[in-house]
């Protein structure tokens, strides 16, 4: 008889990657899916006809790559906000740090990709700990405001850095290359990002199953109880900032390479807010939620734009809105969507997925 539910009897089993026999099926499906994505969404010839990307759902491989970058960023933010309960608006600052390091080490000094990424990560950790220092004294709303202040201060420093080392037009970036493998097509970027995402997911899963990861959650749920158990809560908070900013810095550097060109306007408060939206819509405290939220937040506007591009401008009421002010209409729709999700499903979209999985596992006993 197939296994319906499992009992975990030791930590080793709990930390294992595959806890059920059925997990292998999921892995195979996932790998096949990942292989199909560039085939479906990339430029390709099919039956003698050239399909450009963007014709199926309104997004193609470039958008998917941007989405993957956002996914990693959202996962990192979730570590800070979701797992450790620290509301930090410093996200854009860490991305900027990664980009700066990439500009200095990659463009100015000509380092290859992997050392640049590692350096970006290390600098990210240092900056992250500094940005995390207010969290030792401040909680909740006040921490959010302090990190908001830090956001603006760091952006100012970034601007000064940009003007000092580069031009007002922005920072240029070379092509990323690992040895002789140059990451210069969308497809190559796709696979690079998938590898990075996989490493981040794996690393994070191991972290959260370890006692360090659990200490994040303990510090979030009840920091006073945690410290009464001997946990060094300030150190835990700084560790969380370090982990999160390491990931964000690395992805910021990759983002810089991907776009090829960045300036201070690329790191706005809107970007930070967007990441928060991703994490909250997806479901706070859940890595899967961060993934879902990021995918939705970056890809849904594309879908909406695509679906409304051919609307006849003479349609009453919405016709003019959709043709002249498409961008604004999309953002209004996204805003309404956020409110609806928070109103009716505050635990986030991941709760739908969990409900499905739950029902499947309990079949035929699900209500």
């Amino acid at each position, binding site marked *: 008889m197939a296994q319906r539910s499992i009992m975990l009897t030791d930590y080793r089993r709990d930390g294992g990657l595959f806890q059920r026999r059925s997990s292998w099926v999921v892995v195979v499906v996932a790998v096949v899916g990942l292989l199909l994505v560039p085939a479906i969404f990339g430029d390709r010839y099919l039956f003698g006809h050239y399909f450009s990307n963007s014709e199926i759902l309104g997004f193609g491989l470039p958008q998917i790559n941007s989405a993957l970058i956002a996914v990693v960023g959202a996962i990192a933010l979730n570590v800070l906000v979701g797992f450790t309960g620290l509301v930090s608006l410093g996200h854009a600052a860490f991305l900027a740090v990664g980009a700066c390091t990439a500009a200095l080490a990659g463009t100015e000094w000509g380092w290859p990709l992997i050392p640049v990424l590692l350096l970006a990560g290390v600098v990210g950790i240092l900056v992250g700990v500094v940005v995390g220092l207010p969290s030792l004294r*401040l909680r909740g709303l*006040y921490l959010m405001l302090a990190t908001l202040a830090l956001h603006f201060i760091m952006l100012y420093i970034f601007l000064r850095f940009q003007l000092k080392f580069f031009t007002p037009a922005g920072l240029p970036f070379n092509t990323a290359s690992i040895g002789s493998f140059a990451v210069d097509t969308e497809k190559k970027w796709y696979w690079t990002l998938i590898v990075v995402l996989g490493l981040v997911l794996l690393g994070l899963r191991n972290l959260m199953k370890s006692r360090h990861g659990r200490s994040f959650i303990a510090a979030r749920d009840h920091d006073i109880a945690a410290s009464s158990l001997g946990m060094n809560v300030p150190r835990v908070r700084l560790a969380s900032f370090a982990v999160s900013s390491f990931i964000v810095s690395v992805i910021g550097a990759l983002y810089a390479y991907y776009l090829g060109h960045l300036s201070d306007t690329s790191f706005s408060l809107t970007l930070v807010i967007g990441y928060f939206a991703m994490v909250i819509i997806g479901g706070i405290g859940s890595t899967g939620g961060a993934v879902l939220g990021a995918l939705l937040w970056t890809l849904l506007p594309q879908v909406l734009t695509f679906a409304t591009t051919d609307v006849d401008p003479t349609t009453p009421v919405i016709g003019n809105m959709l043709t002249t002010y498409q961008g604004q209409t999309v953002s209004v729709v996204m805003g309404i969507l*956020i409110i609806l999700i928070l109103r009716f499903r505050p635990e986030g979209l991941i709760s739908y997925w969990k409900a499905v999985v739950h029902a499947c596992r309990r079949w035929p006993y699900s209500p």
Partner: protein
Amino acid sequence: MAEFTQYVVSGLAVGSIYGLVALGFVLIFKSTDIFNFAQGDLVMVGAYLGFGAMDRLGMPFWAAAITALLVAALLGLGLQQVVFRPMLGNSLLTMVMITIALSLIIRGVVVIIFGPLDKTYPDQLPGGAMTVAGVTLSYVDLIIMGVAAVAIACFTVFFQFSKTGLQMRAIGENSEAAAVCGVNANRMFSVAIMVGTVTAAAGGLLLANLQIVSPQLSDIGLIAFPAAVLGGMHSIPGAVVGGLTIGVIGQLSAGYVDGTAANVTIYLVLLLVLLIRPTGIFGAREVVRV
């Protein structure tokens, strides 16, 4: 020296607008525990409503202002009933996200209705200036300070001396005790949000005389937060004092360093206040049971 005083005076003028906006923000926060990220967007809405009334309905400024304030009040009521009321009691992060979503919606709607180009108010207020003791005070600045002062005074009278004001203070102080005394919490929340929206709109109408009317106006919300924190997030007079102080600091740093430095200085001040005395100038220390 004259230059210094100049900056201080223009700082007080723009600061009185900040104070008005921060007042509405703190009122909403104190009464409903909602951190309204969209406060700046409500200021922008006020400015645009005034513009719309003058431009499309051909009203004179004073009539347009009154119309704008009334519409803002209705907007506030609508927001409370439709958006906030069902969501009360959720976590800080959820409520902040809701106001952020509102901010997105408001910005989009404003551009859809009014178009993306910047607008200006027709010159309503007398130009020119008067010189007092070597300091030039423009009439516009003086009028703005005067109007803001009157608005704040009216609000204070309402808040301190009226029955509804008493009930609102009760809710802000201890909502459970207020419920025990028979205060209608939902009605008080509605009033708080309506007053917050109207003060924001008033700020927008004043600001539109100093700056161009564009979606960028909503950035003033980002200045309301430091002002509120400086004064103490639970103190309404603190919000006004905080606004004036931030206005002066901003003008001084814009004058002596450069334009971009103004923003950063304000945020440095915010950071320092948070690290040294998070409860602000007028705030009281919070005692929490573990």
